């Protein structure tokens, strides 16, 4: 039987909003699938398109940018 697909998601989260929101989700014990790994940045203004291309290039299945 085929294993279900578990994507590997790279998350770029702004320190001031989305990263904080992910922390709050934790405090509130919201349960969500364990596929995302967050990279903290100080602002989504930091996002260089290179990061997204590189993530997909080295094998990430998806990229999430939250800011």
């Amino acid at each position, binding site marked *: 039987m085929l294993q279900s697909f578990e994507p*590997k998601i*790279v998350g770029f989260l702004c*320190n001031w909003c989305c*990263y*904080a929101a*992910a*922390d*709050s*989700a*934790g*405090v*509130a*014990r*919201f*349960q*969500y699938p*364990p596929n995302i*790994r*967050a*990279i*903290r*940045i*100080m*602002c989504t*203004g*930091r*996002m*260089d398109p*290179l*990061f997204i291309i*590189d*993530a997909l290039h*080295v*094998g*990430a299945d998806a990229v999430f940018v939250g800011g």
Partner: protein
Amino acid sequence: MGNFAAKVRRQPRYIDLDLCTGCGICADYCPAIVGDAYRENLALSKAARRDYVQAVPATYYIDPEQCLFQSHEMCRICVSACQAQAINLYEHEDMLDLNVGAVILAPGFGRISEEVLAKYGYGRLPDVVTGVEFELLTSASGPTMGSIIRPSDSEHPHAVAFLQCIGTRDVSCGNGYCSSVCCMYAIKEAIVAKEHEPDLKISIFYMDMRTQGKEFDYARQRAREKGIRFVRSRVAGVKENGKALEISYVDEAGKHLKESFDMVVLPEGLESPRDAQGLAETSGIELNRYDFCRTHAFSPLETSREGIFVAGAFQGPKDVPESVTDASGAAALAAEVLKEVRGTEVETKTYPDEIEIEDEPRIGVFVCSCGTNIGGVVDVKSVAEYAETMDNVVYTDMNLYSCAQNTQETITEKIKEHRLNRVVVAACTPRTHEPLFQETIKDAGLNRSLFEMANIRDHCSWVHAMVPEAATEKSKDLIRMAVAKARGLEPLPEQKLPVIQRALVIGGGIAGMTAALNIAGQGFECVLVEESEALGGNLRRMHATLTGDDPKKLLEDTEAKVRSHPLIKVYTEATVDDVSGYVGNFITSISTNGTTESVEHGVILVTTGGKPYEPTQYLYGRSDQVVTQGELEEKLAGAEEAKGINDVVMIQCVGSRGEDLAYCSKVCCGQAVRNALKILEINPSAQVTVFYRDMRTYGFMEDYYQLAREKGVMFIHFDMDQPPEVTEKQGRIQIECLDKIMGEKIVLEPDLLALSVGIVPSRSEALSKMLKTPLTADGFFLEAHPKLRPVEFSVDGIYLGGLAHGPKPISESIAQAAAAAGKASIPLANGHVTVEPIVSFVDVGTCIGCGICETLCPYAAIRMIKVGKRKKAETISASCKGCGICAAHCPSLSISMGGFTNEQILSQIKALCESA
């Protein structure tokens, strides 16, 4: 003043603030399930709790009224559950004896009693809810997770009515004043509810829509566009009609109507704080007739007792931006009192010298169990063992609580023992704990930038509690990413830049003078630049205030103080030609009568003011009978001329609120009421008629509006699409307008027509460009954040007060100017600005000087300089916030961010995609 003995009673929390890690296990185990008072009892909570996740301090406490041990001497489960051993159920209250130089009272506001709410069925009809309850229902973190349901049957309502002026503007309950905030918060709740449920039908029943705050009318406009219905009427009562709630009201034409809704919201007003009288007695201050703190119009932050200041809604009902502003202002006034002792009770922490680190990374990884918060889900041992196998990791440890004091000491020892030069802690969130661990490694002689965290609690064990294996794998990935980043971490300099302890205040009206006096009062030099030939600004034109205080005297007194203060240098007929530099280190050239002078200073305050709108409508300028309220005020000040004024008509919102100016000017309704009362004082038989759209006599001004009505001033409402018509017939003006109650046109032929004109901003474009401080669409200066940073700009070292920020009455200008002075004196008092190591850094060798970074920087923190013959970018570290917009847009990859370099981020990406 300057020497108070305060006795403070401190209630026990039963949980030690220093030991509690905020893990929440006490609440999990606490068997005392109670109503959640913070959520208006719409949810359940425990006796051991934290009210909300952002609470400060972020630790738990035990409610003694609900704790089983406190009431029945049983249970004590939390004591054994708490692995940090932070709980002491035998703690008792203690008394603190404080010797202080100044006192600030900020007890907030109280709640409208349920007895008053009961008039509208609250308590008896379950689907009648308060505004606070409705807000909780719309909140994603509320009891229903943002799902709007009616309490009686948990069904989604289709039609909701908001009834305004609950427990406020209501003499029958003793609260004649207007609570100032309810119209706006009702609109906010209605808009949010519409966003959640677009089909929801919302009607807001109101008397006057008082959205007088900065940009608030735009919110009202948005509410209309979203289909929210506004009905001008005061609702008499709410009745049950089957499953529905029936409300009865009288419309503008006087017709009695009934309408049914699924839910009724009562956006309750603000009451004076509970036990205001007790507080007044203890502190020896006076209250006003509504039990709010008594203050004077020209010293809005000072109580009746010298040295005791007031901030927030205790001074009078007000919203968040004004409360935050007042708080900074009260702090500024207290700082003036405390000037002599500033910095005397400060202990400075010292650190060992930084050690030279080896080139080869030697990484230590500390994996935290956080009691069972992480350890209960993630297999901490296997994670630590995995970390040990990674390149450059020379030491790994597991901690029950990494943040505990003894663990900190262990980490310091291990750094020394294993010559660690990079440290990774896998625990909770860097947003709360990174500074603590950075201190720890500094204590071991490491630069604080050699630290990285992996968030395996908030982003892992807490949110993947049901899938422990996947959580363990994710923890390994997060640690691998952190270690990869740690390999590339470099020590970054911790800079402190000196601040020139002098302020520049631009604009010499009441706001500028107030700010200058406070800054000088705190002991700093101040340069005050005024464009015109005299100080005072709009205050020079004012003759009277609603409260009977004398603006002329305010002007004289303030000007005399400013002129005679040894630390204030005044330039009149002066302009600011150029500003360069950054926080702590500005250079400004000021021209006066053809000569230019250069001034060095550390901060800038923008108090450039505003001016009255010049009307062209309603025959203004064409008939002698048509004047502005300001001109009428002047006529009324000359008593002889005033006696001849018998019949006056006033028209509100001339040019404002969508005509010429899109916004409300906040002061004109009060001005009209004041002039109307003055006319009647001079000539009790005079007839005054006011045509208005919404009378916005918010706060305690409402009393004067009531008084004017009692004295016979006629207030007639008009809609914007049917304004009064003014014509001139045989040299006399004639005003025609529809009286909606009578349903017919009325014609008036007064002696005078006074136009209530709004306030327009001073021409600010040039200054805005010079300072890189933005303007709103209306032309006023735009603050960094309306609630969080209401008197600061996003550019560091520049502050804002008075009409330059937006229209407001004198008292609010004074409070705001004090607030701006308070904020501006922070860098002045510190004498330096600390630069975070995360700032950007430009590689001058590869920079091509294109200037994209300078254009994009929202904080004016990058400038172009000449290096030899070429233009190069340079970071102004003192202003940089580390956002990285410059780095992301640099076409030659010449900008890197401290702690967030391209290489570091790319190494994290790469590490994630390597499998464990």
